[in-house]
């Protein structure tokens, strides 16, 4: 266990007694107090997440935008300076390399924020395609990220910054903001289904930023939150998690993130021919919501059956802390994906009835 990568907040975790686990090679907290309490804090008030393990890759140069257009499924030409965009990167066969956020800092200066466990893979993938006129740098060890999420996130963060946060729209960001004395990039984005901000600061300042935000949010009942609540929050909001809803074998269209796939954008991109065909002829599989009728909780990789035929498997499942229902997301044959279809989930050898329902399960 000694070789797990440590967040800049490792000392804070030790002191607080938070339970940490090996998360993709990182030693990170599952929870500080209780997943349910942390989840509820974010839905009703405000919660704080250390997501410094996320990878950051800088892409710069006169050809940077054209290069990103070629790598990304979304239309990067639509992005303005100060804007952020959710996108996927695909293989030629339409499977997903990663899902990520692209920040346009200047016309020739982009920052990609990628999944921690994919950082090295993504960096290699990008380097293997990089043309003249583009420089790529992996800055993951220099940049920390702290997310403040929930309906009171703006109120808390506003206490620490001079810029007017109410005028910062969703998927917009401001660079070089002074947040309680710490130079940061402040972005109105998140992974919880709530309003909130993701704040990028120098690695060495993360502990100070963390404490500044916790102090600022004391009156609002801010809670430090672990990966457990991050997962249940994103699950209810049907945000895909790489490794579960998205893999090299699953296309972004199948995973329900078609809004980030622009097959008709002017330039060619990796995976375009397969994705365009899927869009025109229909996707083979579809991500659906499941609600258990019988007892039991669907979990990742449980098989889903229609009568005796296996039609797919659960990608994520839990008891929804907000709705108190046993819910799952499942990738199943498109032909059996109609709302209201009754299916069986194989829960550790027992067939349990579930029904296909609308997802996201939660919308603010």
């Amino acid at each position, binding site marked *: 266990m000694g070789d797990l990568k440590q967040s800049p907040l490792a000392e804070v975790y030790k002191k607080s007694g938070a339970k940490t686990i090996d998360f993709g090679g990182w030693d990170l907290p599952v929870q500080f107090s209780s997943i349910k309490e942390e989840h509820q804090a974010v839905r009703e008030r405000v919660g704080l997440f250390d997501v410094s393990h996320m990878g950051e890759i800088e892409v710069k140069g006169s050809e940077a935008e054209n290069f990103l257009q070629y790598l990304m499924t979304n239309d990067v030409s639509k992005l303005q300076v100060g804007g952020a965009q959710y996108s996927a990167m695909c293989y030629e066969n339409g499977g997903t390399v990663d899902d990520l956020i692209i920040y346009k800092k200047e016309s020739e200066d982009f920052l990609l924020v990628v999944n921690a466990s994919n950082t090295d893979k993504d960096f290699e993938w990008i380097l293997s395609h990089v043309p003249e006129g583009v420089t790529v740098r992996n800055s993951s060890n220099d940049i920390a990220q702290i997310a403040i999420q929930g309906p009171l996130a703006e109120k808390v963060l506003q206490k620490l910054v001079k810029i007017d946060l109410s005028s910062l729209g969703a998927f917009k960001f401001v660079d070089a903001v002074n947040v309680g004395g710490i130079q940061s990039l402040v972005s109105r984005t998140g992974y919880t289904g709530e309003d909130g901000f993701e704040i990028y600061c120098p690695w060495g300042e993360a502990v100070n930023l963390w404490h500044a935000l916790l102090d600022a949010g004391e009156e609002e009942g801010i809670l430090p939150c672990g990966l457990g609540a991050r997962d249940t929050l994103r699950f209810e909001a049907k945000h895909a998690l790489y490794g579960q809803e998205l893999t090299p074998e699953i296309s972004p269209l199948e995973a329900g993130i078609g809004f980030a796939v622009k097959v008709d954008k002017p330039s060619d991109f990796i995976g375009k021919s397969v994705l365009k065909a899927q869009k025109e002829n229909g996707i083979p599989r579809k991500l659906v919501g499941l609600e258990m009728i019988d*007892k039991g909780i669907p979990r990742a990789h449980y098989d889903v059956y229609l009568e005796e035929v296996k039609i797919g498997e659960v990608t994520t499942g839990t008891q929804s802390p907000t709705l108190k229902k046993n819910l799952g997301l499942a990738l199943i044959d498109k032909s059996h994906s109609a709302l209201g279809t009754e299916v069986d989930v194989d829960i550790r050898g027992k067939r349990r009835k579930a029904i296909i329902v609308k997802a996201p399960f939660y919308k603010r």
Partner: protein
Amino acid sequence: MNVLNVPKDLRYSEEHEWVKTEGQTVKIGITDFAQDELGDIVFVELPEVGDDIEADAAFGSVESVKTVSELYAPISGKVVAVNEELEDSPEFVNESPYEKAWMIEIEPNDLGDVEKLLSPEDYEKVINEED
């Protein structure tokens, strides 16, 4: 960290179940250490009255928000009662692991098996090693 409770009047298994003798039957549940490791319990699956359970075999499961854990029988016997309240109130496992959250009551094949389980002192050693 929290100070975890290991009552002196119970016997324990390496799999973090406790066993309490009540005359000719025994009650079984999971320990304070186990509930603390699992986090918020949201579902408990138990056998039915009349089922036979076998030492070291799974007899049910507990699910937290995050994971599923099998429940392993510390000793063999026949189920004479199950705690139906846990169906609607799985949080009892977190709140009261040794009282409200007893899981099953069995008639052991051999009451003497209970004495072969871990003493509170030995169980404390087990959890100190895991921590």
